[in-house]
């Protein structure tokens, strides 16, 4: 088994160990975080295009794991984010709150299951294997959401299962039509016919549910807002991204010759609507965690807004980098923000934004982490979010896509409105009815703020590592040559 296999097998091994060790299984993260970070770093340094045929079965039948640009970037970012979330959960255990449905013990196997599923999903090019990884990640995500609210988790479960089956129906049509489900093989034989268009439509619809793109986002805010902070961070940072990465594989690798510009603009339009709608909803929330959850709805919108910009670009590599970097910056910043929000809510009098008063003095490090994450989410320089938005914005202006450019700018402004509202509440003087400051003393203990601060710091540092990351994220695919987009042919 080579490195690519290890990236999937090692988290699964940790999952089994965590299940067997039960209560003391939480200490495993001390080994898992450095080991996985090392493996992911090794992967990022491998020459692009390193592949592994699982079990040495040849392609139409076998499963191909491949380290392309997206996989290397996502696996590395995922290892850093999940590792940091795990270490954070060690010092700040995620107890099930009111639902009482789960205890901190169940958190650890789920974390490793999601890790294995996400790594397999980022690496594989086999659409059926991607279905299995989608289910692994969804299973872990639903169970993590159930730690907060069973009702919200059940709703998430139902809609996610329907999405999986829509995706599977698409896979079935592709099997019947092409007798293969490998993205690299499909790219060579794809043709424009009814079955392929239906398959692509079904798979896209299923994946949009998983990625929570407006208007399929309904399950996300209740599930993400109710879960304990480390679980919310995993859900927003990792679970949502897998659907997005599979959509990249489908739209830009397997079927670039079929996806007409009209279809791309539908995705882009939904993304733009998600940015505006998610931001407005975030502004309307008066509690902190739903605000952060709606911010995820808005940030997912940018990822899809980028689809027509990538496809329409003469030189797509910079728009492509903008899209993937935005995914990574959101992973880092949103994980940091959820962890910081969890700490802030534990210290605050209540879960409303108005209750956050005085926290800036009581827990300066945590509020700093929240603020740094906010800088990246708003796209202020210097940060990963800024680099990504800048690349997308310049692609939009170059193509004369001023609607998308406008949404990119307005979305940043709206993000500033809702995030500064939460931040300024932290700096407000302590509300008279709140608990006395003495009770907040212990929470300022620096250790708990380390993980959110490190993640938010990484999101900022990404802004300085721009060109290196652009190189890492680059992939070699057919669309990299111009004039790929063909006009939609009426079936």
């Amino acid at each position, binding site marked *: 088994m080579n490195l690519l296999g290890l990236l999937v097998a090692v988290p699964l091994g940790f999952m089994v160990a965590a299940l067997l060790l039960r209560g003391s299984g939480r200490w495993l993260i001390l080994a898992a975080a450095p080991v996985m970070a090392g493996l992911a770093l090794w992967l990022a340094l491998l020459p692009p295009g390193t592949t592994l045929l699982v079990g040495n079965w040849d392609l*139409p*039948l076998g499963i191909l794991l491949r380290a392309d640009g997206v996989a290397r970037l996502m696996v590395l970012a995922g290892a850093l984010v999940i590792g940091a979330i795990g270490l954070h959960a060690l010092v700040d255990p995620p107890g099930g709150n*009111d*639902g*009482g*449905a789960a205890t901190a013990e169940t958190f650890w196997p789920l974390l490793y299951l999601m890790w294995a599923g996400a790594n397999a999903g980022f690496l594989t090019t086999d659409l*059926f294997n991607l*279905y*299995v990884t989608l*289910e692994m990640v969804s*299973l872990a995500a*639903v*169970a993590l959401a*159930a730690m*907060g*609210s*069973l*009702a*919200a*988790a*059940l*709703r998430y*479960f*139902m809609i996610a*299962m*329907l999405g999986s*089956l829509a995706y*599977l*129906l698409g*896979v*079935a*049509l592709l*099997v*019947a*039509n092409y*007798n293969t*489900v490998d993205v690299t093989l499909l790219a060579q034989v794809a043709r424009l*016919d*009814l*079955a392929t268009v239906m398959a692509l439509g079904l798979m896209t619809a299923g994946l949009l549910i998983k990625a929570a793109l407006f208007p399929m986002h*309904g399950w996300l*805010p*209740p599930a993400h*807002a*109710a879960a304990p902070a480390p679980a919310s961070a995993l859900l927003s940072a990792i679970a949502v991204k897998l659907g997005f990465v599979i959509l990249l594989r489908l739209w830009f690798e397997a079927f670039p010759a079929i996806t007409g510009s009209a279809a791309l603009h539908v995705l882009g339009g939904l993304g733009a609507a998600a940015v505006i709608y998610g931001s407005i909803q975030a502004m309307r929330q008066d*509690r902190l*965690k*739903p605000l952060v*959850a709606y911010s995820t709805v808005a940030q997912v919108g940018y990822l899809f807004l980028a689809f027509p910009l990538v496809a329409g670009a003469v030189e797509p590599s910079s728009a492509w980098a903008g899209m993937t970097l935005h995914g990574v910056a959101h992973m880092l910043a949103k994980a940091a923000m959820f962890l910081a929000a969890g700490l802030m809510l534990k210290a605050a009098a209540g*879960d409303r934004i108005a209750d956050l008063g005085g926290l800036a003095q009581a827990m300066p490090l945590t509020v700093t982490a929240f603020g740094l994450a906010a800088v990246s989410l708003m796209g202020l320089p210097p940060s990963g979010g800024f680099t990504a938005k800048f690349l997308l914005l310049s692609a939009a202006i170059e193509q004369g896509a001023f609607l998308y450019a406008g949404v990119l700018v307005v979305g940043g402004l709206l993000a500033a409105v809702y995030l500064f509202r939460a931040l300024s509440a932290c700096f407000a003087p302590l509300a008279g009815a709140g608990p006395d400051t003495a009770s907040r003393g212990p929470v300022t203990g620096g250790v708990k703020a380390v993980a959110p601060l490190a993640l938010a710091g990484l999101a900022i540092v990404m802004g300085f590592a721009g060109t290196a990351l652009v190189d890492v994220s680059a992939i070699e695919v057919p669309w990299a040559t111009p004039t790929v987009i063909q006009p939609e042919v009426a*079936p």
Partner: protein
Amino acid sequence: MELLAPEPVSAGHIYAVTGAILTALGFYAFIVRRHALRQLLAVNVVGAGVFLILGGLGRGPDAIDPMPQALVITGIVVAVALTAFGAAMIVRLAEAPRSPDQGKAGKPDA
């Protein structure tokens, strides 16, 4: 277009058409029914339909192709595991003491 090519109707097509009907029925039930258990059953009907389509369309003209079969078996295993998980959650929710968020799953609970 190719899908509807005028070849003789084979057993595979009958399975696939049945599967399409099951999928549509299950999807309809999923939309119409509100109870979680009924929705879970509806999703399973959709799943059965999808597996029939996968197996039926995957049948070659004469020989049976092993790949769709392998996919169907994997899919059934996944579906069984998820159904058990969903059923367990429904039981948990039914047993849980009545909390304010019950019955209005749309609202994030405090």
